[in-house]
């Protein structure tokens, strides 16, 4: 009988060797600015040779999406192997080779709801970093109450053949819409039924009638856009799931978005910060030290929760609403982290565009985290969902 533990140890050694050979030194440094992240896509450019080499090595090995099946561009790793890979990458501080809403959000939804043709086509593109995706969910009148969305699609009979749908409306908070190649989008296709009247559509951002306008945030950056649709044509084979059943796909995908925002996989968002702040500040005010210690307790406990959550989700042991708890706790923790980092950094961390702060990273990052508990479902909505689906409180 093969010994599962020793097989896993063999895999660990192979992974270590492979990482040693393929992960360049520069890719083992912390991600500091947007330039350090590779998003892929039609117009992607690499910021360094190391970034290119690391991405290509992972792409060819299936390690941009290690747990996806090989036919869809992954490496087909088992949950236990994927965990080993994650641990080994984290051990050497390897950067993610490819960051992508396709990997985090659309991919899992396609794996669950897509046709075989859609999976082969879109998942391989995502795994290979060829298409950069954005998400069209929120609208000006539909934030927390997302299901009230109004962007409307109706079927048009084309006399020249090839029936399609025409979409009109506006989305907001579309992350990186101005840089994305395609969008996955919630569109109302039945005005009578609130929940069963939404269809999940995919389309090219270069389609006629699509326009975007960046939104300037308090951080001084513009990661989000307003996105407008004016008679955009969408063929029916670009729907995921059935017509009018897009809310099922949306809910499933939101679960993954919440996992992503909660930083469930570990990494910098769940790490302790006290020691780094001491090095940074030289000396800590006694009361700040106490706050940091209390924070580190919460952060280290939360990282155990993240590990447990990932382990459980892989074998179907996690409560289906647990991502909401992870998202709530993770984002609130991250906001606290940046408040403490600002305090420990003192006046230096107020600098908005100095070289020493890489262009005001401390304050810009601090401000950016305020969106963590708003985007992808506010903390208040998360607490509503926990009340209703986990605690089963009445009328929630």
């Amino acid at each position, binding site marked *: 009988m093969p010994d599962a533990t020793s097989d896993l140890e063999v895999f660990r050694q192979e992974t270590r060797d492979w990482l040693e050979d393929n992960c360049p030194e520069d890719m083992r440094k912390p991600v500091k600015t947007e330039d350090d992240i590779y998003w892929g896509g039609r117009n992607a450019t690499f910021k360094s040779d190391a970034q290119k080499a690391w991405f290509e090595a992972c792409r060819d090995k299936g390690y941009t999406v290690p747990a996806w099946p090989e036919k869809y561009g992954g490496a087909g790793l088992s949950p236990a192997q994927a965990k080993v890979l994650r641990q080994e990458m984290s051990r050497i501080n390897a950067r993610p080779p490819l960051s992508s809403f396709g990997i985090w959000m659309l991919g899992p939804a396609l794996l669950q709801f897509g046709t075989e043709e859609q999976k082969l086509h879109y998942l391989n593109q995502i795994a290979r970093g060829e298409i950069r995706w954005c998400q069209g969910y929120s609208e000006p009148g539909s934030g927390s109450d997302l299901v009230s969305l109004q962007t409307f699609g109706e079927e048009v009979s084309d006399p020249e053949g090839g029936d399609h749908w025409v979409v009109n409306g506006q989305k907001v908070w579309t992350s990186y819409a101005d840089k994305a190649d395609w969008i996955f989008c919630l569109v109302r296709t039945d005005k009578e039924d609130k929940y069963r009247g939404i269809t999940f559509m995919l389309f090219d951002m270069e389609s006629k009638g699509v326009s975007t306008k960046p939104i300037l945030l308090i951080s001084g950056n513009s990661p989000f856009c307003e996105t407008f649709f004016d008679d955009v044509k969408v063929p029916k084979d670009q729907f995921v799931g059935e017509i009018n059943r897009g809310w099922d796909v949306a809910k499933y995908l939101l679960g993954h978005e919440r996992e992503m925002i909660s930083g469930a996989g570990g990494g910098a968002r769940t790490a302790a910060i006290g020691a780094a702040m001491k090095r940074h500040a030289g000396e800590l005010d006694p009361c700040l030290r106490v706050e940091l210690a209390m924070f580190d307790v919460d952060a280290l*406990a939360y990282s155990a929760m993240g590990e447990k959550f990932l382990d*459980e989700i892989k074998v179907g042991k996690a409560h289906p609403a647990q991502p909401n708890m992870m998202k709530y706790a993770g984002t609130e923790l991250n906001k606290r982290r940046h408040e403490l980092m600002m305090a420990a950094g003192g006046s230096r961390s107020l600098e908005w565009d100095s070289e020493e702060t890489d262009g005001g990273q401390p304050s810009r990052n601090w401000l950016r985290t305020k969106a963590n508990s708003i985007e992808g479902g506010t903390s208040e909505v998360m607490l*509503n969902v926990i*009340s209703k689906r986990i605690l*089963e*409180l009445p009328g929630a």
Partner: protein
Amino acid sequence: MPLYHDDDQVMLAETTSQFMREEGAIAKQLRHWRDRGCKDGFGHGLWKQFAEMGFTGILVGEDDGGLDMGHVEAGIVLEEIGRNLTPSPFLTSSVLAATALKHGGDEVRGRYLPGLVSGDSVFAVAIDEGAKHRPERIATKAEKSGNGFKLSGQKDFVIHGASADMIVVAARTSGSDADADGITLFAVPKDTAGLDHDSVRLVDSSMATHTKFEGVELDGDSVIGEVDGGREILDRMLAAGRVGAAAEGVGVARGAMDMTVDYLKQRKQFGRLIGEFQALQHRAAHLYSEVEIARAATIKAQQLLDNDSEKADLMASVAKAKVAKAAGLAVREGVQMHGGIGMTDEYDIGLYMKRDRALQEFLGDMYYHAGRVAEMSGY
């Protein structure tokens, strides 16, 4: 190792849960002994039943008649103890003293472990000196005397001290109070001359002692491990005890939370179930999140202990501190959300608050452990 219970552990949890719900229930144990003013604060009959279930020797090696299981399994038992507020000497005997004895020689193991496994013996540990847990400083002295030692000093917060057949005592055999080295652990049998217990009942109805050692004569066989080499065993014992106390605290937190959430679904005011009010829903949901995280940290610490990982000590403090935060929140919210009846002795929620308070203090509160996390992290 995945961070959840495997099939065997799930089975143990189910068996233990049923046993503790039936035999360890609040009315049957805690209230029963409390209302009779029991001098032990727990029932020896239940302790014998623990032995029949195999709990007493859960951490004891097979050669010594135990089950040779790990801290995850001990934690399963402790979580159910916490949930039912079951008074028992399990944590002091089967976790703390058993961990110390594991590092003892054949003589001391042979003398004490059979009684533990059979449920005939109860053990205590004497660590604290003063009202706060400061095991870094130990002043209680054991001086060479003939072939043995003479023990003098005072220990406080010795849980089950007066009921114990043996007390594990951390004493100084060389150096000065704040030295890490020079500590020796002794197994002190009850009724030894010079042992003086001042028994006190605590807020949670458990019994503790201020114990004086006035020239207590001990033979060389009562040393656990090596003379002057007790600090490492003490640290292991403390880590096991802290993680165990965290597991019991998780049980207290979950018990209080479940009781409170149930109450929100029954109690009506303003013509509505109070659980319909969002002001309470959000607090309950936040509490759920904190308790889940505390439980994950505790299981992580148990696994690290079982793997003998160098990170176990840090995680033990993380777990103890996090559970203190979460369980403290659970009992405070529990009493508040129960309203007036939460203040009555008739309702159990107040008993959870009392047990939590005592458990918080045992082996270091959240301030002690948060400080320890900072020190171990280098700031």
